[in-house]
């Protein structure tokens, strides 16, 4: 693995250069009221790379599986596949969100491969940033997602006046070589600072999963009929925010939409979520998960057990977004496991 360092001012100069070149979309973390979001950058000064509260929507999902995407256009009897993927650079992705992209890869890049996702992933250049100011609702340290060593092109670690850049891909190497005048090879001391920063951040988490994540699938085995699910359901609005904001919730709905002339139309996919009442509804109106408690339970099992048995990877990366966004205060995987564990 190769490491370089870059002075902060230099890094922002570089970002501005990228913006000016207009070769690809440059997207980064910016402030929106009291929150952060990923958005197209007009100037590097907008970037907030030391953000603590996870962005409202996760970047991987926002740009790899857009909220609404056209898959097919049809006209009379003929149809044409649509697969739009423009080059894009993301700046400021935290390790938990990089872990989440691994979960998405497991889902969409295993057979049968999702061509639209694959094309977008290929065209994405990811500059991550280590998560050094964890939010009180994040619990990455307890499930091992506080750091990451692959799954990005470049990863920045803030060590004060400069960033140490970890390079993990060929694309990343090429990028650094192309803009070689901006960086310096990292020194042994730089690397010490890097380790130190990440380890110190690990101690800052306020919230922790009470059980080791390896124990969770087994633990959940006999919790399926626990009264807790009905208890929580009394408070749930079925608003689906806990799904929407979750970086590993990747369910969608597909619909064919015809134009008014009834001759042409599009096939679109749109985000959906298992907390919504309509989610498990099938033709003739039967709903496999018509009850709120079934839906709440499904989300937790999907995060902490199902993805492990199906893809060998945990579906919860500990970002805490579901906790931040649930107005009923019932979405926290940590609280749910704590309560189930007390019985």
């Amino acid at each position, binding site marked *: 693995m190769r490491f370089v360092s870059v002075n902060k001012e230099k890094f922002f100069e570089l970002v501005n250069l990228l913006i000016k070149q207009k070769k690809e979309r440059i997207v980064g973390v910016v402030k*929106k*009221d009291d929150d952060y979001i990923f958005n197209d950058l007009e100037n590097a000064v907008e970037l907030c790379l030391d953000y603590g509260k996870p962005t409202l929507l996760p970047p991987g999902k926002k740009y790899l599986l857009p909220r609404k995407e056209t898959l097919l256009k049809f006209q009379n009897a003929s149809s044409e596949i649509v697969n739009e993927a423009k080059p894009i650079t993301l700046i400021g992705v935290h390790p938990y969100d990089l872990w989440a992209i691994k979960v998405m890869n497991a889902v969409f890049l295993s057979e049968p491969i999702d061509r639209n996702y694959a094309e977008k992933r290929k065209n994405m250049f990811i500059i991550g940033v280590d998560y050094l100011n964890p939010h009180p609702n994040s619990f990455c340290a307890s499930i091992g997602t506080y750091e990451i060593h692959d799954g990005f092109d470049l990863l920045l670690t803030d060590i004060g006046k400069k960033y140490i850049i970890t390079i993990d891909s060929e694309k990343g190497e090429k990028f650094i070589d192309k803009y070689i005048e901006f960086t310096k090879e990292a020194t042994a001391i730089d690397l010490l600072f890097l380790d130190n920063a990440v380890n110190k951040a690990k101690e800052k988490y306020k919230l922790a999963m009470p059980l080791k994540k390896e124990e969770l699938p087994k633990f959940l085995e006999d919790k399926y009929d626990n009264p807790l699910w009905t208890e929580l359901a009394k*408070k749930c609005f079925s608003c689906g*925010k806990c799904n929407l*904001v979750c970086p590993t919730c990747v369910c969608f709905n597909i619909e064919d939409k*015809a134009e*008014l002339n009834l001759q042409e139309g599009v096939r679109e996919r749109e*985000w959906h*979520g298992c907390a919504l009442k309509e989610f498990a509804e099938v033709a003739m109106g039967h709903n496999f998960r018509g009850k709120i408690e079934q839906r709440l339970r499904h989300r937790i099992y999907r995060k902490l057990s199902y993805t492990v048995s199906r893809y060998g990877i945990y579906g919860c990366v500990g970002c805490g977004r579901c906790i931040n966004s649930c107005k009923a205060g019932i979405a926290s995987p940590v609280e749910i496991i704590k309560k189930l564990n007390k019985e």
Partner: protein
Amino acid sequence: MAKPKVAIFSMACCAGCALQIVNLEEKILDLVGAIDVVEWQEGLSEKSGGNYDIAIIEGSIVTEKEAEELRKIRQTAKIVIAIGACAHTGGINCLGNHMSVEEKKSIVYDGDAGKIDGLKDAIQPRPLNAIIKVDAVVPGCPINKNELVEAVKCLLLGKKFRLPDYPVCFECALKENGCLFDLDIICLGPITRAGCEAACPSINKECNGCRGWVDDPNQNAAKDILEKYGLSIEDIKKRFEIFNAYKTEIMEKKNA
């Protein structure tokens, strides 16, 4: 194939929803290409004498005369679409329904109500479905014009027009709005039917529920939250009632 005959009617309301139809601009041309608008208070003047494929109706019913007209439209129209909060939930016209018609007349007209002809057959304001069967609803105050186009499209295609059955919060999160509750602003988004793209929270205004409630609102949960944010049951009721007074009225009768 003959174009479907469509008529648009206004009952008691501000006509803001019909204005949204005028605002459809280029989309209305497509719509006009596919349908034949035969009667419209805002647009056409000649009366076509019934037999509509689709009757689009805005406004709530506040007089016996309107109720009669509505029943007639129903008899001659294949499909009735209620558009806007007034037609859908009764809307703000129902805000005074906790008082009798006579009480309201005397407060508003100070004893002169008897002199006004139009008030003679006034009744308690009602949504359309309290009087006739409604086939589809396009909710909101005012309506979301794209949703109306969608509804007409579906009905022309013989598909059922489905409204989202999830709360405004879902769309609010999609728009990457922070939650107003975090700013201590009380919002009815959690129980109100989505489809407006969270229009109000997106400009930092609380949702007042103009699209009516989701099919199965978790009212107890809503009360819990509102209470947590310091609203009394009376306050909560007032907020719920801005656009949904008729529904509360019916529910109270049921529970009584």
